[in-house]
């Protein structure tokens, strides 16, 4: 990393750490959402951006992790720290099982993407019919006092959730930066660019794809546990919905697939854009249902048509950090 890039990164980190001191609760909730989407986007990026396996069903891991940790708390009063490990373990097993089945049978590309959707949808409908999850009526976690920080039960003011997500995003950033320069990162990129060539060079494709899958599902599980204890209510219909998976994917694609900063930048741009469109339409009194999403769709269309590699490469060039 060049000196200029390091300075910019330090400035960004300082600004993010200082934010709760100056921001009101609305800004803080938007910032927390951005970090949540940035983090899940980073997790997805490991699997699709680095290793080239298109997943359209990441809501599966968010949902399963949220229900594992949330259910432990709801039914047995077990706090989220124990739940986190169990949720990660369950999601890693799930990711490994799906990866094992798919990669063993040589399922890739579009077929793999549709398989990930199928598992997420299958689980959504299944959870709707399970008594343990509360079914479609939902599961509600008890909300205690909001003004005291209770780290054991992960209860506290909005700033606590903000810092928790900031730590996750920063951790994921460091992990991804290290991964990209590790042996795994180079193998993944080789597989992404040309699987047959990578295999011919002696790379054990199955093993490295599995690693990407397991790592990505474990990271997403952390986000799922956060989701459960931040929003405190879980509905299968919402949490496993394909639109949740799409929400995770949009950030990295708009920001720049396979890049370090893409998922973070994309999450920020899209969340701010969505709020800005709402404000703008309200300002002009154009509040027809659907109009906001039409504008949003048009922007997505414009970005993907005119910036095939996302926004980050353009921004990086402007900032002079594209090495």
């Amino acid at each position, binding site marked *: 990393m060049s000196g200029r890039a390091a300075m910019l990164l330090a400035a960004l980190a300082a600004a993010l750490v200082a934010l709760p001191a100056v921001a009101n609760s609305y800004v803080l909730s938007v910032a927390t959402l951005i970090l949540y989407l940035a983090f899940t986007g980073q997790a997805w990026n490991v699997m699709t951006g680095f290793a080239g396996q298109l997943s359209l069903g990441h809501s599966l891991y968010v949902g399963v992790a949220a229900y594992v940790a949330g259910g432990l708390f709801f039914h047995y009063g077990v706090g989220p720290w124990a739940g986190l490990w169990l949720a990660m373990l369950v999601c890693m097993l799930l990711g490994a099982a799906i990866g094992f089945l798919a990669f063993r049978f040589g399922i890739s590309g*579009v077929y793999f993407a549709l398989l990930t959707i199928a598992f997420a949808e299958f689980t959504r409908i299944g959870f709707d019919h399970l008594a343990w999850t509360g079914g479609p009526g939902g599961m509600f976690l008890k909300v205690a006092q909001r003004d005291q920080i209770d780290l054991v039960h992960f209860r506290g003011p909005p700033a606590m959730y903000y810092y928790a997500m900031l730590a996750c995003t920063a951790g994921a950033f460091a992990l991804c930066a290290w991964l990209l320069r590790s042996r795994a990162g180079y193998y993944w990129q080789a597989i992404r660019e040309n699987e047959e060539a990578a295999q011919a060079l002696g790379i054990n494709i199955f093993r490295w794809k599995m690693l990407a899958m397991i790592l990505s599902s474990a990271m997403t599980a952390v986000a799922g546990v956060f989701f459960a204890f931040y929003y405190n209510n879980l509905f299968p219909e919402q949490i496993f919905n394909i639109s949740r998976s799409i929400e995770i994917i949009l950030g990295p694609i708009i920001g720049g697939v396979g890049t370090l900063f893409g998922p973070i930048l994309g999450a920020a741009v899209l969340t701010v854009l969505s709020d800005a469109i709402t404000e703008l339409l309200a300002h002009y009194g154009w509040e027809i249902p659907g109009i906001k999403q039409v504008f949003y769709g048009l922007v997505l269309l414009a970005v993907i048509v005119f910036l095939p590699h996302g926004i980050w490469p353009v921004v990086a060039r402007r900032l002079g950090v594209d090495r």
Partner: protein
Amino acid sequence: MPWDLVANVVIAGVLTGLVYGLMALGLSVIFGVVRVVNFAHGEMMTIAMYAAVVLFAALGLDPFLAIVPVAGAFFALGYAMQAALINPFITRPEHSQFMLLLAVAIIMVNGLLMIFGPDARNVQTEYQLESFELGALLFDEGRVYAAGAALAATGLLFAFFRFTLTGKAIRACADNYLGAKVVGLDVKHLYALTFGLGSACVAVAGCAMAVLLEVTPALGPGYTLLAFVIVIVGGLGSMGGALVGGVLIGVSEALAGLFIAPSAKSMFSFGLLILVLLLRPQGLLGRKG
């Protein structure tokens, strides 16, 4: 459970399944040739349903007669979409293509929501409440016509690919992109034709479906997923497979609705999809890739 109830549910499932099959056939043809998955497929289906509803409300046009203008308009729309938007994306990575068609889908669903609002619309014809009786067996008239339209459209498409020169040229593009280019075929034009034909399939299926169901903008994504399930089960790119898959899913949904719970019916379809992907990834009637 009385056998005639089960039999009638199966009949309704088969007839609806044929319409599903035609919708999925559109997706299958597009993927088979252009190698792009149309993530806006169900949304296009909903637009066709609305077109039938509007033509019925404004002109009193029967949905089965509306097939002709709607299919024509969809062919033009599909051709234009492929020529203007999708052709530049055929060499881009899958996630790029997904994003493009997702954006199109978002605009379609919410465009419908803006124009028609969230309330359900339908057409009311005399034959919707009638049925043909064969002993204890009942064949809903609307469903029979819908299935007939689906079969007729499938037959026409099959004949087009089998017997016309343009159809053969499109199959050549599907088999060998480079080879087709080398012998001087205008591949981009043929791709656009294919997308137009796939869209016309959706138009016919949509007009027929408008007779069977009320339409809301929110139906779109569900139909997209349904079409995926059907083509994977039947075999992506196989024309017969799409119909077989459609009937299979139609019947399994109907039976799951009867024996388990209506809300669990798509779990059955997705379970079937997972099994097929794992055991026979090329689909029931698909060729080995």
